[in-house]
């Protein structure tokens, strides 16, 4: 009986502490992040808004990211979108074709470990209904070579996304560590209908066969930063 009481109290304090941390993170989100990122679903779904927003929408962050990655990235932000957000505003004409105008890109602010933990908790609580259907993505293993072939030659995703340095286009987010950063259900649902998450976004909505959708999602979820370091 006493042990049960102890466990109950521990759980209560753990949940209460998490709630407090998330509340704190939400305050940081609202004060420091909301001028660039939408943390509630935007009511303006126009193309104009896509052009004027400063950062990716985060109102569905809890469906999108993995918390462990968020905590780390918020302390040491790296470039995810090589051409920034949105790409058209950060490119320039050169004699060799268009190039990224690095001078127009601003680094993402860094957070302290405590802030990163709080903000990650707050972000993970942003889970609007209706964007993903849990369980649709089966997460069945895929042969990496087959996955890469579908991503590149067969479905053309590499036109805009890179899965390794120099291995694909620059207008979409890099996917080197998609398996560390993103959730499988999100990958599946976003590929299925990108505009459902972000109206007018410059990623095509392809009519992929279910098997292709499963295969591509599994492949992306299998990509990890550690593989990059090993040169795989």
């Amino acid at each position, binding site marked *: 009986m006493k042990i049960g009481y102890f466990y109950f109290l521990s759980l209560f304090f753990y949940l209460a502490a998490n709630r407090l941390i998330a509340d704190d993170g939400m305050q940081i989100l609202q004060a420091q992040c909301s001028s660039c990122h939408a943390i509630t679903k935007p009511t303006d779904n126009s*193309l104009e808004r*896509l*052009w004027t927003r400063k950062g990716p929408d985060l109102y569905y962050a809890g469906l999108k990211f993995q918390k462990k990655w968020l905590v780390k990235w918020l302390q040491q932000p790296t470039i995810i979108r090589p*051409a920034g957000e949105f*790409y*058209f505003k950060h*490119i*320039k*004409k050169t004699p*060799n*074709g*268009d*190039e*990224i105008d690095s001078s127009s890109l601003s680094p993402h602010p860094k957070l302290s470990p405590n802030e990163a933990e709080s903000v990650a908790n707050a972000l993970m609580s942003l889970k609007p209904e209706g964007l993903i259907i849990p369980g649709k993505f089966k997460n069945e293993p895929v042969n990496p070579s087959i996955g890469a072939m579908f991503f590149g*030659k*067969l*479905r*053309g995703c*590499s*036109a*805009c996304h*890179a899965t390794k340095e*120099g*291995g*694909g*286009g*620059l*207008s979409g987010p890099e996917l080197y560590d998609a398996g560390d950063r993103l959730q499988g259900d999100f990958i599946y649902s976003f590929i299925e209908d990108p*505009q459902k998450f972000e109206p*007018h976004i*410059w990623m*095509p*909505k*392809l*009519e992929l066969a279910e098997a292709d959708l499963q295969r591509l999602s599994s492949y992306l979820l299998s990509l990890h930063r550690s593989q990059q370091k090993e040169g795989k």
Partner: protein
Amino acid sequence: MRGLDPIDFFTKQIQRSLLFVLVLLLPTSFIPPVARADDAKWTKIEKLYNTYCVQCHGIERNGTGINSKFMTVQPRDHTDPKEMGKIPDEEIIKAITYGGISVQKSILMPAWGKVLTQQEIYELKDYLRHVCNCGGESK
């Protein structure tokens, strides 16, 4: 010596001012009304082109977008009247709607038919004709 009549002076000043304004407005009167309407017409569709097409086809519309360096097949140069002129309107519409593969071209050109409306795709086709300054061969 007789002084200048103030009324005459102001009349002359007004005449000069009117003449100046007319001279300023003269060049714009030579721009055909259709051309001015055309510029406004392309503004909306240019925004669509800049959103979806520039990533591969480039700011100059000549196939040198930021993604093009990593592609095995280079994006179409939309400013090339010779090559663009060989493509019928229906093929341009089909390629934008269903992707390059639908017209026996590269998979790297995706299908935009689920993102853009049919009206927007038709307007993009017209815009491409404007960019290449060419008509298309009929099938």
